[in-house]
């Protein structure tokens, strides 16, 4: 296990778990949003995280956003389960760094080709990159930390060609250290995705096989 993956997963845990995760890491409010280094430090005590999420897909041609819901699980150092329960059942797994995706059809889980789509790999790889806190080292995005009542990390594409697909990504932190309010991925003026996390549990026991292919 590389140190970078451990750091990625730990930071993800803090972002999703909210203030409890930060408290477990010994962070304080003002320090939390002061630098990327403080974010990494806050992740140190997090072993597992579970949370629910709501995803809104906003499109110009839709009168109202398409809402998806699901749950998230993380285990340090590098295992993630990103499960959509409605309206389409799907599971994205990263188990010790290996990415796979499964779709539920005809009453059973089957391996999904989307897990092999390069774009999906790029997205997941970028998510990992954001969560390491090594924003300055990214060859893909230029980061900016915006302090305030709701501190934000704004990521803009370093390569203009990428801006055709993703204009910016905004991680909005709550006023308490470590708490993430939302992740917004802006693809274009008429297309964006908003993820909100809630009901997070920190360092609780995970279901057995949480990061194994679903059955």
């Amino acid at each position, binding site marked *: 296990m590389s140190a970078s993956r451990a750091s990625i997963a730990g930071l993800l845990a803090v972002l999703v778990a909210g203030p409890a995760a930060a408290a477990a890491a010994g962070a304080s409010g003002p320090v939390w949003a002061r630098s990327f280094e403080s974010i990494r430090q806050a992740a140190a005590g997090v072993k597992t995280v579970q949370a629910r999420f709501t995803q809104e897909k906003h499109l110009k041609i*839709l009168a109202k956003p398409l809402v998806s819901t699901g749950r998230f699980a993380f285990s340090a150092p590098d295992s993630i389960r990103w499960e959509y329960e409605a309206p389409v059942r799907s599971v994205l797994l990263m188990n010790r760094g290996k990415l796979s995706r499964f779709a539920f059809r005809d009453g059973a889980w*089957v391996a999904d080709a989307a897990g092999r789509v390069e774009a*999906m790999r790029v*997205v997941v790889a970028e998510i990992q990159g954001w969560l390491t806190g090594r924003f300055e080292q990214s060859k893909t995005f230029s980061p900016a930390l915006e302090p305030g009542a709701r501190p934000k990390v704004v990521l803009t594409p370093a390569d203009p060609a990428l801006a*055709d697909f993703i204009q910016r990504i905004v991680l909005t932190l709550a006023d308490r250290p470590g708490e993430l309010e939302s992740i917004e991925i802006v693809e274009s003026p008429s*297309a964006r995705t908003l993820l909100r996390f809630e009901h997070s549990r920190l360092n609780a026991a995970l279901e057995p096989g949480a990061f194994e292919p679903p059955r």
Partner: protein
Amino acid sequence: MRAAASVLAIACLTVGCAGLPELVPNAEPADSAGLMARCRGIQPHRAFRAVHAIDAALPMDQVSSLIGASLVDPEQRRYRAVLMSVEGLTLFDATASPAGLVVHRAVPPLDDPDFGPGLMADVALALLPPAGERPLVGALPDGRSACRYPQADGGVVDLLPAAHDAPTRIDRYDQDHHPIRRVVLGPATGPLGLAGRIVLSAPGLAGYRLELTLLEAEAVTPTDELFTP
């Protein structure tokens, strides 16, 4: 070679490998008028937007779950289709109209030049009334009633309204009258009359099967702005 023959046989069972079946015209004008009315009722004639869950069975035993959003303006014969991953990533976005196809966004590998036209043709076949005002109407050799729409490219689209124990079906043939698509529509649902489930099959070694489940739909005023990026 044996495997290829097996795949072809399965494709034939699914879509049919016979050529364009003969259509015996109705003898009674009243029967023709009634059949034409039933064919016209298969797809909505007012503008709508819809969201579908899509289960795709692709070549090489690959499967994928996707979400599709569509905006359809039958009167102007223009439509916009957006294909998304479950995670919300917009993979493909395009508008088609009599003026042509405009791809707003295509994430690799969906940026292949053949992908956009093929996808949009499938969307049109499933959601738009066929082009052509004067179909031939009658009965196919198996006894099912059908409306036949000759297409500008030399191809043919057959609409088969639901029969006693058979669902509504749309068959498309190419200019050589080989079957290239089959769409089976489930019962209509909601005030728009859209099918709750649509299954589209493409035969052949590179064939695929798309199962669309309607998640939501509503009537819309199709302003030009909705069809632009």
